[in-house]
């Protein structure tokens, strides 16, 4: 279209937006595509060897997963060999993959977890157990934190949405941990969770008159991730309370008056007035929590370093450990790409859910 130069300001327009766009392009867009590129090379941060293109090899390594069935060891007569305690003996996968051509494909893979099925042993084997553990923990973290934190946040929002004197002070207090750095919070809670002199153990001990034994919350593989979840929820729940609150405040008070006239109970008013009005907010809250949960890093780095026994490994922690700690840029990039794909899937779900409403 032939536009006169009167209302077009091409030069000024570009000049004004260029600083911002250049920075975003250089520091977000370029690294973003870099991540894809690097994930297909053998790049290291400082390396004497030239970088090589390896295609999808890194992905093949990291994502390789298989289910194998191991038959019990039998003696010459064909009876199953058992050890002294009667446990069935199975051949080592390592040995099998060397000797048995049928198992050659599993060379270098390790058992992630397995279970007994009849006489045979089913095992899920992976080439990169740490990645899979990190993925599982991250998904677990997301699956627990998203609904729990979202639910508690809604409860708090309802609580501080009451018309009471001084309610603003409570709002301010509930939101307080949000402005505190997650790093600070993590270190503080390391003290609270401490196995010996921790505040939590001592308080529990006092409150129960010694009935509850002390737990090394972060040192125990079965409690460490749960402890980190609880703390993360404590820190960020105020954030989502605020989002719920702005959703609540868009619901017209006349609807409640109408419900009141109809004789609806408190619960019915919530069920039929509040909740339908919060549908969009709910999607938003869940998505935002999920995104934040996927980024789980600082808590791990400060509190557990992925331990004990890898029970708190997370995707971002692994990406940093490889890309920065071990200077394995390509390994870190692969995890970054996987993470991005997960995040993208989530935002597509969000798009879809919000579009649904408009129809």
């Amino acid at each position, binding site marked *: 279209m032939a536009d006169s130069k009167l209302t077009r300001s091409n030069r*000024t327009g570009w000049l004004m937006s260029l600083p911002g766009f250049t920075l975003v392009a250089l520091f977000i867009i370029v690294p973003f595509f870099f991540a894809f590129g690097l994930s297909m090379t053998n790049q290291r941060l400082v390396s004497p060897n030239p970088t090589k293109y390896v295609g999808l090899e890194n992905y093949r390594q990291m994502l390789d997963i298989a289910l194998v069935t191991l038959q019990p060891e039998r003696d010459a007569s064909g009876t199953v060999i058992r050890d002294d305690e009667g446990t069935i003996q199975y051949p080592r996968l390592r040995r099998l993959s060397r000797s048995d051509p049928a198992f050659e494909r599993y060379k270098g893979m390790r058992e992630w977890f397995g279970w007994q099925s009849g006489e045979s042993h089913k095992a899920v084997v992976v080439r990169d157990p740490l990645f899979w553990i990190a993925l599982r923990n991250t998904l677990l973290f997301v699956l627990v934190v998203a609904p729990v934190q979202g639910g508690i946040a809604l409860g708090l929002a309802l609580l501080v949405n009451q018309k009471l004197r001084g309610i603003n002070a409570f709002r301010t207090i509930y939101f307080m941990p949000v402005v505190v750095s997650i790093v*600070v919070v993590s270190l503080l809670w390391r003290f609270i969770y401490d196995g010996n002199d921790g505040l939590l153990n001592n*308080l529990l001990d006092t409150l129960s008159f010694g009935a509850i034994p002390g737990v090394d919350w972060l040192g125990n593989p079965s409690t460490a991730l749960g402890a980190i979840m609880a703390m993360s929820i404590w820190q960020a729940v105020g954030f989502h309370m605020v989002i719920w609150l702005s959703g609540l405040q868009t619901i017209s008070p006349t609807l409640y008056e109408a419900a009141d006239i109809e004789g609806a109970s408190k619960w019915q008013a919530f069920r039929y007035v509040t909740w339908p009005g919060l549908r969009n907010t709910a999607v938003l809250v869940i998505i935002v929590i999920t995104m934040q949960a996927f980024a789980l*890093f600082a808590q791990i780095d400060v509190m557990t370093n992925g331990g004990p026994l890898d029970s708190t490994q997370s995707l971002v922690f692994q990406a940093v450990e490889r890309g920065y700690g071990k200077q394995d840029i390509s390994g870190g990039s692969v995890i970054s790409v996987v993470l991005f794909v997960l995040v993208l899937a989530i*935002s597509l779900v969000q798009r879809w859910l919000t579009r649904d409403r408009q129809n």
Partner: protein
Amino acid sequence: MISHDNHGLRLAVRYAVLVLVAIIFVFPLLFMVMSSLKPDHQLLVDTGSLRAFLPVGDISFDNYAAAFQRAPISTFVINSVIVTGVTVMLSLAICSLSAFSFVFLRWSGRNLLLSILLATLIVPFETIAIPLLLLVSKLPWLGLDGLEQGWLNSYHVQILPFAADALTIFLFVQYFKDLPSELVEAARVEGASWFQIYLKIIMPLAGPVVATAAILRFLFMYNQYLWPLMVVQSDEYRPVMVGLQYFFQLDTPWGEVMAYLSLITIPVLGFYLMLQRAFIASIASTGVKG
């Protein structure tokens, strides 16, 4: 039907619940501050009782003095102030200028550029941190000693990657769109250049969004951890959050740790308590994106 007593009782229950919940949020922070004032032996004993949350016993600032002995804290604080302050300023200037040109000027490529920018909203920083690390380790920089290779260990490696971001631009764009376009047209008729309109008409009217963006940027930058952890190895440029590593060792006296934590947290909390409405409003505005 509802007797006055009943009403009073209900009110009491409501406040009781509110206070109980408040305790859960306040006490850990209170514990942090109180612990920072106590010597280690008392500190550990106190954790068994409510004394943990009270300034009782042997109260002093000794832990703070000791923390300053252990780590170059003042350097960390200065670094954090520089990095956070400069980034917030730069980001406000750069992003508002971009948003201004997107909203008020007509130029070819405008819509495409804006769409690309907004698409980056869904890229979490964590997913680009590793490739970005490689990128900045190779970028050249013209310093006082001539051309240098690599940005690691510097202020600019902590500042420039965050000097512009899609969320801030988006917040400004939303705000500018709601300003009456006649103001801009009137200024144009009066003879103002685009830059003068930006500086003299639009920015003076952008107070609320500037506050929102500044708060969000401030919180993000001051609390940054992963990035400075990767790109800064020397104390000279280390910000407070990474400086925490001095206190990671297992044998660190908790009193000192709590002193350091309090030191770097209380200013932010004070800031928040002063401007709590603005803080909460700015967080709420991040929720409306998408």
